[in-house]
């Protein structure tokens, strides 16, 4: 029993964070709202160069990459990364010519399946999986809550993507954790300098307690996401349940983080003068992606109430 990551796993996350600090500054996220190329531009290439897009082809597991996905969330990286780097390698045959292209960052994938009805950034996709490889599909665009994520629907019968969808849900949950931590840090910093009634607002107890509540929710969502990565990596019988628990926990924590961050910032949080709104929109978009919370809750209810209570690896069979 050792619930901790290896040095290598932490190192990978650190490297990803470092390269994103350069390749994905807020200005790039901002630009992604209007310039399509940005969504698969610098940040995308940087992750390809690191070998991150091809990590799964190199037998890196979700447990190896989950900490890095948190950093990708923290940096609010745009583009269909989860679909391309996580889902496609699990859905495509191991000898598919697409895999090396994905690893090199030369192939962008968008996915539609029972668990995820909208195709993300299909306007940039070289390959559509629905969930089988598909061609000449009529796409309809829908205005998205997050201008850096363009959403499309396709007239096409959907099938469930199963384990691939569970992997995606956990990669998204990890991003929600990273987004939450950015929101906490940014709010604490703002509250430390903004003055009202002659005091920095961060010294008001009501505000301290609101941010403390966010910190608590994020703190206890984190091990749930990490456990889900472990369960999927080891193909445990509780893997799907654990993935749903991760998405619900991270989504709830991020939702509270977003609401609180806006409350701390006040009206200026809506404005173009700050980057806050980009991170808020990403939170709202990801909560609805790869299984909204209602969908995951239904799965949890079935697993914990109807099915007999499978003990996860951390509980003795």
């Amino acid at each position: 029993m050792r619930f901790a990551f290896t040095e290598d796993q932490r190192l990978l996350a650190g490297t990803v964070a470092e390269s994103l600090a350069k390749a994905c500054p807020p200005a790039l996220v901002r630009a992604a709202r209007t310039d399509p190329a940005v969504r698969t531009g610098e940040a995308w290439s940087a992750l390809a160069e690191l070998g991150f897009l091809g990590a799964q082809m190199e037998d890196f597991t979700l447990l190896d990459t989950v900490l890095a996905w948190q950093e990708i969330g923290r940096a609010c990286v745009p583009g269909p990364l989860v679909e391309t780097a996580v889902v496609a390698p699990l859905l495509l045959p191991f000898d598919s010519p697409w895999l090396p292209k994905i690893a090199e960052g030369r192939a962008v994938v968008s996915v539609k399946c029972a668990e995820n009805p909208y195709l993300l950034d299909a306007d940039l996709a070289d390959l559509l999986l629905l969930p089988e490889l598909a061609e000449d599909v009529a796409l309809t665009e829908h205005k998205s809550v997050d201008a850096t994520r363009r959403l499309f629907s396709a007239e096409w019968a959907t099938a469930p993507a199963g384990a691939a969808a569970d992997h995606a849900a956990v990669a998204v949950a990890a991003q929600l954790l990273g987004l939450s931590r950015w929101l906490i840090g940014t709010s604490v910093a703002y509250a430390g300098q903004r003055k009202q009634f002659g005091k920095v607002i961060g010294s008001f107890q009501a505000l301290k307690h609101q941010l403390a509540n966010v910190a608590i929710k994020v703190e206890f969502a984190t091990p749930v996401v990490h456990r889900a990565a472990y369960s999927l990596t080891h193909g445990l019988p509780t893997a799907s349940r654990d993935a749903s628990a991760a998405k619900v926990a991270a989504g709830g924590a991020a939702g509270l983080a977003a609401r609180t961050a806006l409350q701390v910032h006040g009206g200026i949080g809506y404005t173009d003068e700050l980057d806050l709104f980009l991170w808020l929109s990403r939170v709202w978009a990801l909560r609805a992606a790869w299984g909204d919370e209602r969908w995951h809750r239904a799965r949890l209810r079935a697993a914990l109430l109807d099915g007999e209570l499978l003990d996860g690896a951390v509980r003795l069979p």
Partner: protein
Amino acid sequence: MDLNFTPSQQAFRAEVREWLAANVPGPLPSMDTAEGFELHREWERKLAGARLSVISWPEEFGGRSASITDWLIFEEEYWAAGAPGRVSQNGIFLLAPTILHYGTDEQKARFLPKMARAEEIWAQAWSEPEAGSDLASLRATATPDGDGWRLSGQKTWSSRAVYAHWGFGLFRSDPASERHRGLSYFLFPLDSEGITVRPIAQLDGEAGFAEIFFDNVYVPGDQVLGELGQGWHVAMATTSSERGLTLRSPGRFMAVADRLLELARQSGDQTLQDAAVQAWLDSDAYRLHTFAAVARLEEGVELGPASSLMKVFWSELDLALHEIALELRGADAALADRWLDGFLFALAGPIYAGTNEIQRNIIAERVLGMPR
């Protein structure tokens, strides 16, 4: 206690419902775009034509001298019909009650009729960069100049200011004064020499707000509202009266709650259905609470700090209504639509008009009598 509407109230409701059914336009572009602004003014003129734009005002200024109850009925029908937002909101809800109470006959005659017909749209200029929630720390100044005044300083979070014609706000007319004292209530045309309006771009596109810069702007003496140096009291006086009610009438939330129940009916998820039912009941509770408040007002009891209870309740109710709706929409919650717009707007509720943190302080200290 009688919870039935009188025949005349029912007749009025019927008239409003009928008129709206015949005249409400399809969704208009945002009133914070040039085109949408004009289309919303057009709608206001149409309302005025039916004497429905400012029903609670005296007839002479374009109203019907309607009671608060009539007003609440009008609002219920207005929101239920999905009619456009009120581009003249700042004027008719925030400024007009103050003019009617403190204005000179000349000011009433000069400003109210044009306001009622949306010939002049008003922007509010309360906040300043360093005075968001803390209005009493205002710095913008008014210095005497002959019979008039010179305004200098900066205002921010001015809704409508980008396209509006006139503005109103508090300026420090006594340089020696501090906090709530020495402020005066000024009315000024936004095209005055020395005024610069800078839109505040929002990340979702539109610019609903603006900053207003005042560089020695001349304002004649008859554009001071109420007594000189009494601006704070003039501005606050109406908040605990009817205004506290008319600003956030329950009709708006009931209309959303009814739509939420529709969503819930289509869902098989009992948990979210129960959440929707609770939110509908809370909207209904807010509506009942409002009618009870109306009865107290009619007995001459002012709302006073109790209006803080209402502010916190409606703002968190509005947020809950939209959060539950987004959960019910599932994967579609990622799509920008009416529900999402409502959610983004609701998120501002706990922030503006006195943050909910400040409102809770007021409730604890002035309603419950806890120590400062």
